[in-house]
């Protein structure tokens, strides 16, 4: 325990809570722990989530506390994990499966697309499948092939799914809890480059659902006049650094919008801001073609093109297969690349 804070920005909390400084991965573990304690329908399942504590330690120590029925080491089979999670949810549980890396979620793609995302619709609202699938995703930890992709597009383009990508320990804690309590299936993508990047005070106690953020709305983190900069997850972290440097170096004043929920996408907040600033830069780690930045650009085209003083700029990875680790830093947008994108847009 390290303090008491109010954290309205990241978490929607209005009540003060005991916190301690945690990394993102510790915040995940803490959120798991609280939700397991709160609701005995919640269960964690996946490869190595039990006695190993998860290969990133996101479930560390939980099997010791909650036992093997609630923190389950499964066989090595992603379809089986998601398929049985759907069944568990149908029969009253709230499974929180971990897929070890998002690059291995494709093994379960059909269960996600064909069942998880459709069950509610198929049964006319009668049968919910409240499953939260956690997946570490994105580059930046010097991992192997298939361990560094950013493919949120696949899930965003799948109607019926909610897709959350948190930016910080606090936000992760809050949104993971909100996701687990949501009636909708959630794909929870964790930017593993941030897992241990920094610490924040994270509540050590459970809170009521009304203290947790609504899943959906974008969050305006900073208000500025010259340009609207949109990002989320790992790239938000880099974006804020870029914005800070630009403010200092070039006196650029930016509105910074975070998208903790990339689907459903809250384009209203972005469009409103762009109507004011007339300029927009979207930063994503994914490659360019049909990344979320394309959708944001298209929505601004729909709603606010007449307000634009510069084209919407997409700062993204190139349209190639994610390279192995030697090139991963060159592949991802970095702070200077983000700065160039913003300056270009402001100077347009």
């Amino acid at each position: 325990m390290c303090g008491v804070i109010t954290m309205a920005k990241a978490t929607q909390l209005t009540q003060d809570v005991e916190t301690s400084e945690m990394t993102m991965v510790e915040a995940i573990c803490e959120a798991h722990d609280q939700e397991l304690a709160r609701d005995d329908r919640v269960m964690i399942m996946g490869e190595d989530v039990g006695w190993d504590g998860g290969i990133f330690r996101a479930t560390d120590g939980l099997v010791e506390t909650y036992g093997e029925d609630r923190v389950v080491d499964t066989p090595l089979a992603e379809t089986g994990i998601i398929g049985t999670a759907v069944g568990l949810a149908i029969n009253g549980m709230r499974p929180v499966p971990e897929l070890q890396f998002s690059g291995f979620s494709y093994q379960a793609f059909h269960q996600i697309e064909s069942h998880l995302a459709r069950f509610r619709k198929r049964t006319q609202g009668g049968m919910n499948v409240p499953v939260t699938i956690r997946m570490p995703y994105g580059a930046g930890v010097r991992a192997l092939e298939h361990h560094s992709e950013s493919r949120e597009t696949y899930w965003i383009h799948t109607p019926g799914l909610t897709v959350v990508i948190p930016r910080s320990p606090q936000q992760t804690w809050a949104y993971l809890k909100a996701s687990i309590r949501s009636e909708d299936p959630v794909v929870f993508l964790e930017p593993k480059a941030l897992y241990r990047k920094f610490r924040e005070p994270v509540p050590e106690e459970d809170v009521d659902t009304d203290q947790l953020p609504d899943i959906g709305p974008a969050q305006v983190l900073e208000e500025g006049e010259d340009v609207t900069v949109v990002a989320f997850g790992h790239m938000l972290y880099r974006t804020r650094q870029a914005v800070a440097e630009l403010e200092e170096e070039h006196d650029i004043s930016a509105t910074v919008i975070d998208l903790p929920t990339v689907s459903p996408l809250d384009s209203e907040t972005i469009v409103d801001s762009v109507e004011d600033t007339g300029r927009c830069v979207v930063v994503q780690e994914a490659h360019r073609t049909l990344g979320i930045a394309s959708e944001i650009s298209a929505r601004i085209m729909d709603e606010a093109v007449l307000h634009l003083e510069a084209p919407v700029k997409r700062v993204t990875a190139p349209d190639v297969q994610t390279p192995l680790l030697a090139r991963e830093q060159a592949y991802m947008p970095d702070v200077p690349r983000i700065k160039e994108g913003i300056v270009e847009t402001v100077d347009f």
Partner: protein
Amino acid sequence: MPIEQVDTPSEIPYIQILDQDGNVDEELEPQIPSSDLVDLYRTMVKSRKFDERRMKLQRQGRIGTFAPSHGQEAAQLGSIYATRDDDWFVQSYRELTANLWRGLEVEDDLLYAAGYEHGMELTGEENQTPIAIPIASQTCHATGIAWASKLKGNDRVTITYFGDGSTSEGDFHEAMNFAGVFETPTVFLCQNNQWAISVPRERQTASDTLAQKAHAYGMPGIQVDGNDILGVYHATKRAVDRARAGDGPTMIEAITYRMNVHTTADDPTKYRDEEDVEPWRERDPIDRFRTYLLEKDVLDEGDHDTIEEEVTEEIAEAVETFEDKAEELGDPEDMFDFAYSDEPPYLAQQREEFTDYWDRHDVWGDHHG
């Protein structure tokens, strides 16, 4: 030491109680109350009649594609009858007979086949899942549902249906393996109807039997004459009792035959001879059951016709109800319903955009193709 044999399980019992001519094996004959026997018979007849009626409706374009149960009535009914009402029923898409036993309304089946999600409305209280079209995908759900029953500490069993072709999918493998590892109370009921559309059982897998696949997951496998309702009941009851007692899953291979088209979109003359089908007409599960019931004096000669008339009448009424309901469901706006538990603003905006358009145009016929 050099080479020694490892002991692995290899037992696969094959069960038949009513033979092809309707003779019963008295030692194994299950004690089923007469009223249930009549209900079972009526359900089989209704299923067969409704299949015929659906076929006509489909040919007339009043409903879309469906997969008939014809020939598989005993495999479905003997097995579902071995479960309790509060057991979970996890279907694929060919289980009309089992569904009728579980209380499916004929008009809902038609509504669904006509393309209205409303026919598949479920609340979760029915202890059953909706139609699952992606082959074998439902077997994973069945393992999960059974697992949840076990975790919750109740004694409900989950039975899931799938075909011979379904055993080739990875989903089947993973569902069976999870069931074995977590010892879930699941009964895997494979209707081996010899065909996966055009692909015969022999080309689906080089395994001698489908039942023996169970051994790869540490569970027992049983073969049963799938056109023998009593044999299927017996085999399933054994598996259900085992699951309910906490002893884990079982796989049953019910050997039957797809007497009709795969679905109404299929033309079997392309790939199988009428000769292949012929011997199976002799093994018709309804005829066989009737012989038994007549022999047993549970039915008499006239009863069959009465039952047939009654169910035909029920079906006719249901078809009318279906058509009235379909008429009421004209407005396509409901495609926006149930996408999320709370409609996000962007979707609400689209709902407005589209309903505005639909209000101005009559666009849901086929005529704009």
